[in-house]
């Protein structure tokens, strides 16, 4: 069995090779490479396909109970200091590898359809492949430094992908925001990592955990300091997994093409934060304050995301906030010590959220046929409606995803969310209450989304609404960000001649897009059965290091049907309330949503404006740093430069400085000095 482990490094290297080949082609033989189009896609898809097969082989081997495998080599040395890199294959890694590769593969197949008319088709594939490589590298990392390395690489890929449509001002701003926000988290991550290294002399997870608890026990490190380091490391996942208060980048990241929203911002990259918490579990579990911080951050994020998602009209933004909310669940699970439950929800969420995002992409693709390639129009649910008729497969799969995320049994989300909620209940009923309430809100907004998109009448032809939406976007652009005349021209053009250019009805997407949806629907519906509380195969396989897990037989024995009934019943119950409300408001239209919105206007505005986080951050940090930079420049120019200039150029400033520079006399003086030095040397040399 050794052999298949020895070459496991191929899993990230294969997609990296694919990306490198295509990337080099783009730089050196741009036109030829672009003309080859699908040939590039084939190279990249097959490389990730091989990686996927390999991952499944490793998963199978791990399920059979083979021992974890570890390999490391010296990466950098300085004196006695050695930094090692390598890879590790254990149950959690093999599961993550399988999730990432399957989702990546399906997203890549989908991309062929979605991006078929885009001039950046090949570039997009190479980015996708680079991203997959970084993510896979992150997963197999055996120590903190290596995780940090891939962590940043993943962040860079997301920067490239969000800014993929570089001619859009909004995308340019969004990618920068994503990178910088993530860097804030990385700042904490790096400091925490250095602190832990200083305290324990190691970058290995288990070693850090053991030595840290030893040091705390014998008093060489205060528990407060250790907690500080733990929280600093946790800042990394806060940014990457879009947790409060660093969540602001995720919704903006929807400026990227939809396949990437599915891959990065739903299934894999944002899960990296949860994965890191899982990896750091041996360290965190000794630090109760850190665990509490993690749990509460998760709970707050879950609620915050759901409360914003209620009022979003952009289908992708709505999904983005729901992602944030679901990530909150996972982080909360980690914080209450429910390691397996958190990882299980990560897995189920990866599949159903990837499907939901790809489904939204399919919807947008269909809408673009009607309203044109304009994200403002194509993604707004107020222009959708009744799409089930035109896009039956998309609607069916989106429906399955909705049921899964709402926690309706027996779909995947039910099992994983229920497990988290019951763990939270045992840890702290207040956390459970937040999670329970959020589950209700989730059910409401997801069905609101489903109904507004797929049920009722198609509203895409509503010109008044279109104009209103276009106008609403205007203030969002800064001066010079977009040519206003151009905007008028496009909207007028559509008013007059829209029937000539566009269809009046959306259509179902091509097979390459629909196929991944169907394939993803299978795990979304069924994968939950791996983690039933009375037969939790998942927990038996993936559990915290050192944790003793009951065998399947014991689980079945311990299983308390009454408790399960109460927990599951309450969460299903609150979900049903949410669904019923959505039915009344958006399907049967018996309750007018706008009337309710009017009644609770401050709350409605709070949610619609995302709790004003962007505005606050803009005023505090963006404007603040600009002001600071300007001040630094002023100081530099007037004081530092001024002072040194005065001492250095006192003679020059004493009257005829300008003349001095203009006549080039300084030049002459410098040459004289130089000549004199040279002359002296030569003179002595000769004599």
């Amino acid at each position: 069995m050794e052999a298949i482990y020895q070459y496991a490094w191929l899993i990230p290297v294969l997609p990296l090779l694919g990306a490198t080949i295509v990337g080099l082609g783009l730089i050196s033989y741009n036109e030829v490479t672009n003309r080859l189009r699908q040939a590039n896609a084939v190279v990249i898809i097959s490389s990730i396909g091989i990686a996927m097969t390999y991952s499944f082989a490793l998963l199978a081997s791990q399920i059979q109970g083979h021992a974890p495998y570890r390999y490391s080599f010296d990466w950098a040395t300085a004196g006695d200091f050695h930094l090692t890199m390598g890879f590790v294959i254990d149950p959690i890694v093999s599961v993550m590898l399988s999730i990432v590769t399957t989702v990546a593969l399906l997203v890549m197949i989908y991309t062929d359809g979605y991006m078929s008319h885009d001039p950046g088709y090949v570039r997009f594939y190479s980015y996708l492949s680079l991203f997959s490589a970084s993510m896979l590298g992150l997963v197999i990392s055996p120590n903190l430094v290596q995780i940090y390395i891939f962590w940043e690489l993943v962040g860079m890929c997301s920067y490239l992908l969000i800014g993929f449509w570089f001619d859009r001002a909004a995308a340019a701003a969004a990618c920068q925001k994503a990178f910088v926000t993530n860097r804030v988290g990385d700042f904490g991550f790096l400091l925490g990592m250095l602190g832990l290294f200083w305290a324990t002399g190691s970058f290995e997870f288990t070693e850090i955990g053991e030595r840290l608890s030893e040091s705390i026990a014998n008093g060489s490190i205060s528990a407060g300091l250790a907690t500080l380091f733990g929280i600093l490391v946790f800042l990394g996942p806060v940014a990457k997994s879009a947790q409060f208060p660093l969540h602001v980048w995720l919704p903006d990241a929807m400026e990227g093409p939809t396949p990437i929203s599915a891959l990065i911002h739903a299934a894999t990259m944002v899960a990296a934060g949860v994965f890191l918490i899982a990896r750091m579990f041996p360290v965190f579990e000794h630090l109760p304050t850190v665990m509490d911080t993690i749990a509460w951050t998760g709970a707050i994020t879950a609620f915050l995301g759901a409360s914003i998602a209620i009022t979003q009209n952009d289908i992708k933004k709505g999904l983005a906030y729901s992602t944030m909310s679901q990530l909150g669940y996972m982080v909360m699970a980690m914080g209450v010590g429910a390691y397996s439950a958190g990882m299980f929800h990560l897995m189920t969420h990866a599949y159903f959220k990837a499907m939901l995002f790809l489904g939204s992409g399919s919807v947008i693709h269909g809408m673009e046929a009607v309203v044109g390639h304009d994200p403002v129009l194509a993604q707004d649910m107020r222009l959708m409606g009744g799409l089930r008729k035109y896009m039956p497969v998309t609607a069916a799969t989106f429906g399955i995803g909705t049921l899964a995320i709402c926690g309706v049994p027996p779909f995947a989300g039910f099992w994983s969310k229920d497990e988290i909620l019951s763990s939270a209940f045992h840890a702290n009923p207040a956390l459970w209450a937040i999670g329970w309430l959020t589950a209700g809100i989730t059910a409401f907004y997801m069905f609101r989304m489903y109904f507004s998109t797929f049920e009722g009448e198609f509203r895409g032809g509503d010109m008044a609404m279109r104009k209103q939406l276009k106008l609403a976007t205007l203030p969002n652009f800064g001066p010079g960000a977009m040519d206003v005349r151009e905007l008028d021209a496009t909207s007028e053009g559509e008013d007059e001649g829209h029937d000539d250019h566009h269809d009046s009805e959306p259509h179902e997407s091509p097979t390459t897009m629909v196929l991944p949806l169907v394939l993803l629907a299978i795990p979304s519906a069924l994968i939950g059965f791996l983690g039933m509380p009375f037969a939790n195969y998942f927990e038996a396989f993936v559990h915290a290091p050192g944790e003793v897990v009951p065998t399947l037989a014991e689980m079945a024995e311990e299983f308390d049907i009454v408790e399960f009934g109460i927990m599951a019943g309450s969460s299903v119950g609150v979900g049903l309330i949410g669904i019923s409300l959505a039915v009344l408001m958006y399907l049967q239209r018996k309750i007018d949503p706008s009337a309710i919105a009017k009644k609770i206007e401050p709350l409605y505005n709070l949610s619609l404006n995302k709790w004003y986080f962007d505005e606050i951050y803009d005023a505090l940090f963006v404007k603040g740093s600009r002001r600071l930079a300007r001040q630094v420049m002023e100081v530099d120019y007037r004081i530092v430069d001024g002072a040194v200039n005065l001492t250095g150029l006192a003679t020059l400033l004493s009257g005829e400085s300008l003349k001095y520079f203009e006549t080039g006399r300084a030049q002459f003086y410098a040459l004289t000095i130089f000549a004199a030095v040279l002359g002296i040397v030569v003179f002595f040399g000769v004599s």
Partner: protein
Amino acid sequence: MDSLPWLTAIVALPVIAACAVPVIPDKEGKTLRWYALGIGLLDLALMLFAFVKNYDLSNPGFQMVESYAWVPQIGLNWSLAVDGLAMPLFVLTGVVNVLAIAAAWNTTRKPRLFYALMLVLLSAQLGVFAAQDMLLFFFMWEIELVPVYLLISIWGGPKRLYAATKFILYTAFASIFILIGALAMAFYGDNFTFDMAQLGMKNYPVAFQIAVYLGLLVAFGVKLPMFPLHTWLPDAHGEASAPVSMVLAGVLLKMGGYALIRLNMELLPDAHIYFAPALAILGVVNIVYGAFAAFAQDNLKRRLACSSISHMGFILIGIASFSEVGINGAMLQMISHGLIAAMLFFLAGVTYERTHTLSMEKMQGLAGEMPKTFALFTAGAMASLALPGMSGFVGELTVFIGIANSDIYSNTFKLGVVVCAAIGLIATPIYLLSMLRRMFFGQAGKLELDVPTSGWLDVNPREIAITACLLVPIIGIGFYPKVATQTYDTKTTEVASTVRESLPIFAQRRQANPFLSSGLFAPDLLAEVAAPDAPEDA
């Protein structure tokens, strides 16, 4: 060892070749540029061959020593040698200069003088890194100023005279301290010598060391540049043409860092202990101050210049860390920044040839017309913001680990330094990414682009090749840092142990002398160092 004077040949070749420039038959500068590039490549090939053949990586001492009495009356010796500090920077100098000559392919204004000066400049830089005689070092240091001054003042931008004058006044004035320091050290004690190895063996009193150290710190601080002596740099870069900026940022700034290690640390280790905390603080100021100053710049090259100031701060922190890892990181940061800064300044020049402006305010949406430039610029910016997988990250990470694990500072001091330096991690992407956003993103068409004579609107193959020559080592070091670190690791380990040997001596003196323990000097040194058996390792 074979007896051929390799180093002398390598250092002297460009300047001798420069003497032949006036008599070379030339049509429109086309022969000349091949000539200059050929000399540069030959020199690079010579040094690579010589090092492969004669250089022993495991030996921390000086190698390939060549010493001839040159002007015995004033004690000047032509004494050259390389060790782990000099050798990597020697090669870096060769690479960056060859690429700078290739970057200056379309120089039409006074090509003869231009290429002659570039060659003289190459010799002087190599001389600085190889000189083992302090007077020779000073001599080379001064010679190098003249070509740079002329290159800026003749081929620069509109305010070139102001920038060039500022440059020459700053550096020439500051380098007087090198001469004073050299003379002071040479005359101290019984034997009069400028030889660095012998200077290092003298036992200077602490007060003397401090005085000389301070002088040298000013001289090298200007070059590095170190806050508050940095203000010449944005002006010089803002006005210099791209090839000169490449050399300036790629090599000349490293001379400051190199000299700090070579002279201040190795020759004056006792004084270094007093100044180390100050250096660490100045390093932090450099990082943060440079980053914010960069963010406020509209001129592309001034922004990159300020980013250099920011990155040089890591060298100061590494030097001040007193640990093998930290000094190793400082060295790596020098090499890495040399490559990255050269690449970014080169690409800025490429862009300037098309846009004829350096103001980012005026650019927008260049990506549509120049996608490859965009890709390469992005790669450069990523390298500069210390993206893992590229050399900048390894340099900065090593410095961070070095200072975090340094055992001579109090925890509070270290925490302060590390946290403040890490602010640079957040600030760097802000100014670099906003640079990319303003230049390349958005709707195109704000600027009329000019197709250069080569006929390529986007980067042409020559420009891609130059960038690749810089990008390949950047990524290579990023992927496997050992390729770079093994060239100097034995030496930096030795430097660290040299300065650490002074720690117990310093502690005794501090106890004896109330002036030194007054808290003004070395305010944050840990009390434990007072014990003579201070722990040797982190």
